[in-house]
Each structure stands twice: as C-alpha cells, then as structure tokens.
C-alpha cells in the first residue's frame, strides 16, 4: 500500500548568489528506503534541512502526507512524524541517556512519564544501551552516541526518518549493526531517506537512489541504474566546475 508520502516540487534554495537547490522535484512513497547521494556541495543536506524545517525555501512546495511542510517550525514537523539525525550528533551531553530519550517521548504531551520511560527502556534494550540508561550521555563513546541518536528518533514514532551521514567515523561492526536497524525500521513501515558518502551502505540498503549534483537531480533510479549512469560518474569524477 505504497502512497506518495513526501512530495517535493520546484524546490529552490539560494545562499547569497549560490543556488544550492535548483527547482528540485521528487516524490517519496510511504515505506521506501531511499538513498540520497551526490558530491560535496550538491545540496543533499540543504534539502534535508528544508524538509525538516531548519531552512526556509526560496521557492517551490513540499507536502508531507498531503499537508504543507514549508512554513512550519522543526518541532512541529517532528511531531507530525518527520524525524531526522545530524551529521554531528546532537545528543544532550549533560542529561542521562534515559533523559535524552524522554525529551523526545514527552515533547508532544501525549504520553505520561511512566509510559514514555517504559517505551524508552525498550528501545534502549534493542540498541544495547539499556545498561547505560542512567549514565550521562557525555560518558558514551562516539558510536554509542550515534545509537542514542537513532533511539531518540524512534522515540518520536516517526513516519519518515531523514538520516544525514550516519556512518561517519563508525566502526565496520557498528555499521553493520546500524544497517540492521535501518532495515528493521523500514520493515516496520517507516520511510527512510539516507544521505551517505558510503556507497557500499547506500547500494546495500536502498531500493532507489537519487543523485544530486549542483542542486539538480541528475539521476533517479535503482542502484543498478545509478551505477551505470555516466552522468553520476561524471558528477563524482568529473571536473564538476565544467558542468555548466
């Protein structure tokens, strides 16, 4: 029962004279696991920041479950089911691991503290962080921090999750663990947009890959199609300055 969940059309974003997104059109179906790739500066994180409400757009529209996204604050979008991670984890270092989880669980006021605590402990157990629930987040290792960020997002019960370079500086073993969890979320019906430079992960996980280059979508297809598209190879290898 795949339906259009996220509908981006004509999205434009400029920073001063630089066009970061140049009329981007893209739809994401409910339950997809979509890879978003492209060389540095191609506009991936900008797109993510607009969809999650952190940047204003200069043109175009975005609908999430047929409701407009643009003009809403990040916290409103988070409560509507758009979860996201950050390239550099933004865990709350002086709060405990459990408190980190509760911020997400209690923010919409729908759960009581004890309900939220139960759910949080369950999620922490899944991610093998249960033992650390009452430790300050500052005592976590970098990898555990990444997992906590994952767990926190799940605490929101999101319908779509935007992951921005989740594998940076992560051990291969942990990466596999994270892969498993991303698949598990996706299997449970959560839509996922994955930004990564780690092509192995992208081609491993995603059924569909969208490639951005200089603010334009240059390829939208299966991993196989993307791999064989000369435009994509050019974008990565090429003298991208010559693109214009």
């Amino acid at each position, binding site marked *: 029962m795949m339906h259009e969940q996220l509908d981006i059309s004509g999205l434009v974003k400029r920073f001063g004279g630089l066009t970061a997104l140049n009329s981007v059109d893209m739809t994401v179906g409910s339950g997809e696991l979509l890879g978003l790739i492209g*060389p*540095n500066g191609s506009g991936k994180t900008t797109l993510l920041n607009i969809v999650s409400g952190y940047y204003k757009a200069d043109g175009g529209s975005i609908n999430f479950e047929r409701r407009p996204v643009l003009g809403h604050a990040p916290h409103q979008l988070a409560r509507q089911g758009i979860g996201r991670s950050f390239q550099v984890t933004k865990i709350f270092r002086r709060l405990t691991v459990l408190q980190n989880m509760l911020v997400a669980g209690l923010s919409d006021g729908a759960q009581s503290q004890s309900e939220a605590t139960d759910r949080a402990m369950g999620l922490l157990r899944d991610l093998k962080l249960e033992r650390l629930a009452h430790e300050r987040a500052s005592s976590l*290792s*970098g*990898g555990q921090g990444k997992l906590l960020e994952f767990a926190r997002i799940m605490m929101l019960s999101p319908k779509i999750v935007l992951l921005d*370079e989740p594998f*940076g*500086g*992560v051990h291969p073993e942990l990466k596999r663990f994270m892969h498993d969890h991303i698949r598990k979320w996706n299997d449970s019906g959560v839509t996922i947009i994955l930004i990564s*430079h*780690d*092509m192995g992960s992208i*081609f491993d996980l995603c059924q569909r890959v969208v490639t951005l280059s200089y603010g334009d979508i240059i390829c939208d297809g299966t991993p196989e199609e*993307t*791999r064989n598209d000369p435009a*994509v*190879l050019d974008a*990565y*290898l*090429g*003298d*991208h*300055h*010559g693109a214009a």
Partner: protein
Amino acid sequence: MAQLEVRNLHAGYSRDIDILRGLDVTARESMLTTIIGANGVGKSTLLKTIIGQLRPHTGTIRFGERDMRDVNTRDLVNLGIAYVPQKHAIFPEMTVQENVEMATWAFRHEKPRARSAVERVFERAPYLREFRSKRAGLMSGGQQRLMQLELALMSDPELLLIDEPTVGLDPKRAGQIYDHLRRLVTEERRTILMVDQNVIAGTDVADYIYVLELGANKLEGTKKKFDEEYRDAISEWLF
C-alpha cells in the same frame, strides 16, 4: 631535502572515534601527490593532523628527520612547510599589500629577504598590483585563492600542503591553479601534497595518487600506473 611520511596514522576529533584508521601516505620529494576519496573519508582530517591542529591517536608523522606529532601550526613555516587551507586563509580587511607583508611574518626581521619576497609576489602575480592598496576581501574568490597560493610560497617552502585547491572556482581559474601547481613541481622542484575532490583534474596533474576509503588506504600508484589500470578501478570502487 626531505619527504613527508605518514605511517599507520590513527586520528579523529574525539578520543574514541578514529576518522583515520591506520593510514600510510608519503609525499615524495619534488613530486605532486594527490589524495582523493569521497567526502568524509578523512582527507581534511589527515591534513589537520599533519599541521598540528589535531593530535594523532597513534602512528607517526615525519618530515625528514623531524617528528611532527607534537608540531604547532605556527612552527610549520619555520620547518619549511606551507599550508593552504580550504577556507580562504587571507585577512579580508587588510589591503593586499598588508596581506603579502603578513606572509613574511616568520622572517620579518630578515629585512632584505622579506622585501624581496614581497616584490617577487607582485612580479609573479602582476594582477595583484592593481589591488595592492585595496582590501583583499574585495577580490573575487578565484583571485583570493591564487593570492593564497602566492602567500604560501613566500617563505620558500620545501613542502606545500593544499586542501582542495580549486574548490568554488570556475574551470578557467581552476585550470590556471593546476598549471601553476604543476610548474611549482617541475620547474621549482617543490614537493606538494594535496587533497582534492576534483578527481579528474586533481589526478591529471599529479605524479603519485592515493585513493582513500573510510580513513584507510584503498589504492595508490604513480600517475602512469594510475592511468593504465586504476581509472576503471576507481569508478568500480566508487560504486
């Protein structure tokens, strides 16, 4: 003359995350060495560790006889190393003349040397003359980038470390920069280690190439070998 040797380097921004995981890189004398790899594999981290902005977790960095593990950024210039960061390393509110003079800081007390270094810049880069008494921030991005290269050369370094030489430049300017770098190696026998996203142009100009993947060595070889065997390997590796 000396070469830069990085052996089994582990480094990163926090103690427990290694961005670099046992990297080996050598910048061979009088050669241009280019390091390529996707964003986030640790190219800039490598440069930051070499110049002392980050301390290695383990591994060695040597420049000639000098152990570079405890080096301070401000000592580089005295070791004969110039670093050209990705962000513009100029002083935007100072005039171009003042910028050029600041680059003689390390040898400002050797007046004749400093003076001739300043004059040489304006000879080598005549376009800077018209900006001499204007604020450097008024120049275009490409002009600033070129000036930065000139400033780096003023201390007559043996080794140039360059982070993304042509980022944000139009193809013509980029071409000029690559030509310029090539000349520095062929004609002036300098050693250059640069990291570059611009895979084709960055490898085209190089003598020796390293390809990184997630903080470790993936491929390496001379330009010739690279041309013959590695082009396909690279695209294969990318996808």
